[in-house]
């Protein structure tokens, strides 16, 4: 904990003295990590970023940067680079002047400034754009300039507040790639805020899922998707089928759950409590097989089929839940389903995760 580069220690934040926007936040980041704060709007992720940047003060708790408490250090002395949602490029300055600004206020000489600005612009492949005004650049170019400006003074920590929100899909994907590349090349620590889960999963070393002012789960992307800790994370990340029930008994890792329609099924006991407590079982659509055999075989009524080219999305009625989705790969020799027919589906007990009831 103490050797973490960025640390939040029991941090709380309230704007009005009545409700907590951030509740008991604990987070430790090693140097060089790319961490994403992911969550719906109002979940407290941007507030955390603003506290780290110094634009909001923590109501309680300690924020440490490189072992030093920074709660009372003003933003300009923290040495943290920041990329804003709307880029915040200074409209009255050229691109070159924008990049030179952080160097200028640090008292660097003219020659040194020019070298660094040139290098930073080349890094984002905008070497010829120093004399342009921000308004003369496209959205993607502005984004790159903002990135270059946040990096030009060589900060060890860079914060990004939904930096790709205003770009179209294609550009966004390209920039995701570029941002991860550059940050890994330079070895900077990045805290990235977004509400876009694809962005979070593709870019980050670890993702912190925020909800209701708390981190619900902090894990690498594949863990988050495949091994969600609770129902919120399972719902929020990717597609998810849920079956509500009551825990009947637990033996080892496996819980036997009695579903709403009286049938029982087996699931991995993750976060379901003891026997007798309510639970939600979470099963990823691609982990369900049609007609296969296994521990949990059950009947399913086909309600709807959507043809998506590479796969067919089937909406089924399973155990009384008619929103149960299965993805059937459009491979050679796959089974043809038709609406209204009843078929057998199966999943492994390890792929069904018994989580907390919402």
């Amino acid at each position, binding site marked *: 904990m103490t050797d973490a580069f960025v640390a939040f220690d029991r941090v709380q934040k309230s704007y009005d003295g009545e409700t907590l926007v951030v509740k008991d936040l604990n987070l430790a980041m090693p140097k060089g990590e790319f961490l994403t704060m992911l969550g719906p709007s109002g979940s407290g992720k941007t507030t955390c970023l603003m506290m780290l940047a110094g634009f909001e003060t923590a109501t309680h708790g300690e924020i440490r940067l490189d072992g030093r408490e920074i709660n009372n250090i*003003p933003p300009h002395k923290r040495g943290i680079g*920041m990329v804003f949602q709307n880029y915040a490029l200074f409209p009255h300055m050229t691109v070159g002047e924008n990049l030179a600004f952080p160097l200028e206020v640090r008292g660097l000489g003219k020659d040194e400034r020019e070298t660094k600005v040139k290098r930073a612009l080349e890094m984002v492949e905008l070497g010829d754009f120093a004399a342009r005004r921000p308004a003369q650049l496209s959205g993607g170019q502005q984004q790159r300039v903002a990135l270059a400006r946040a990096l030009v003074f060589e900060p060890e920590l860079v914060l990004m507040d939904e930096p790709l929100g205003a770009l179209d899909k294609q550009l966004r994907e390209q920039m995701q790639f570029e941002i991860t590349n550059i940050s890994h090349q330079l070895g900077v620590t990045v805290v990235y805020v977004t509400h876009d889960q694809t962005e979070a999963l593709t870019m980050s070393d670890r993702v912190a899922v925020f909800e209701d002012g708390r981190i619900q789960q902090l894990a690498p992307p594949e863990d988050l998707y495949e091994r969600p800790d609770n129902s919120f994370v399972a719902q929020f990340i990717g597609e998810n089928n849920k079956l509500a029930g009551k825990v009947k008994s637990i033996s080892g890792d496996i819980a036997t759950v009695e579903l709403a329609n009286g049938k029982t099924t087996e699931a991995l006991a993750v976060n379901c409590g003891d026997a007798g407590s309510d639970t939600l079982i979470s099963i990823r659509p691609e982990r369900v097989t049609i007609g296969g055999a296994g521990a949990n075989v059950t009947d399913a009524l086909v309600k709807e089929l959507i043809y998506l080219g590479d796969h067919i999305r089937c909406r089924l009625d399973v155990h009384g839940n008619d929103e149960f989705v299965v993805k059937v790969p459009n491979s050679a020799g796959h089974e043809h389903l038709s609406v209204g027919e009843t078929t057998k589906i199966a999943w492994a007990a390890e792929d069904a995760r018994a989580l907390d009831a919402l």
Partner: protein
Amino acid sequence: MADMTAGNYTGPAGTEGAAGTLTTADGKPLKAALNAAQSKARWRAFFLVAPLLAFVLFTFVAPIGQLLQRSVHNPGFTTHTDISSGTQTPIMVGLREWFDNNPLGTEPDEAAYAALAADLVVLRELKAPGSVGTRINYERSGSRSMFTKAARRAQKLEPPFKEAMLDLDEDWADPEMWAAMRGASSAYTFNFYLAALDMTRDVNGEITQVDPKRQVYVKLFQRTLFLSLLITFVCFVLAYPIAHLLATLPLRYSNLLMIFVLLPFWTSLLVRTTSWMVLLQSQGVVNDALVGANILADENRIQMMYNQTGTIIAMVHILLPFMVLPLYSVMRPINPSYVRAARSLGATSWTAFRRIYFPQTVPGIGAGALLVFILAVGYYITPALVGGADGQLISNLIAFHMQKSLNWSLAAALASILLGGVLVLYWLYDRLIGIDNLKLG
């Protein structure tokens, strides 16, 4: 593709004619077709602005043209206009002919006096000696009565006319009198501009300064300029923080505060000015409060009215909204993330303000300052009511010449100089800051 211009584009409906000009599908030249298609829209647009255009022509362009003309043209010594019939009669014909034939500096001889006497007879018949005398009176005071008196007796004068005239009044031999009459003998003259700049022509026609005791206008122009600049500056200093506060507060509060800023706009100018009189006079609210609080002794009441202080205080109050509104409209859209970005990049809050925030508000400052300054330069009611003697501005003197002395040509010359000065400042502003950077809202 990107640099393809409209000129070489032949779309599905366009075909290229033999000579290389573009034509429509049925062979008409494309340009003519385009004009025809757009002319209706153009006419409609013109008719929409026509009422305003006419209004501006009648109420703005025409009066200013007349004003400029009047400042160089005064027919008081050359043409008499009968008020009831409107017929115009040339007057002082003989004397003007004498002036034409005898160059400047010629001693008026018997012929000159004879012509003057004959002209006075005509004036008497036209009942015009008063207006002619007034015209000469502008340049040489005391002349009006000489004309009326001489015209009354002109019929009975007998040669030699020089002695006869001098018998009536010694001053008829005064070279200044003759210089003034020579100056007025042409309807077109720049003498009013000279007078407006405290200058005059001496006996020999040379331009000289008037007697220092009678120099008023240049000093008044200077005072007007100085007070207007001061008022603009004070407005800026007061308005900037208010506008910033309004721009950063949540809309709910800023709308409420905006009402307070706009409240003076909805109150009559006269009411606002007179309420300042209630507050500022030596037996007024402010002085009473200071005396009551024992801050001031009763005999040391501050004179805040009927001097420059009164003019400055009241005019700052009245013109403040004109500074607040453009500043507010420029500040409102400035995203707070600019300052945050500057802070995160290592700038102190002062540097962030100076380098990032302030430069983005310059268009609003320019607009507000220009607006306040131009309004202040021509302000009339407030200085007239609270300005006293040394709080008067040039517009008060223009009003004086319009209403009291009835020297409209001088008033027009003063107003023209004021107009010219404002235009010069506008031009300077354009050179220094650029008019494109002006942002009124």
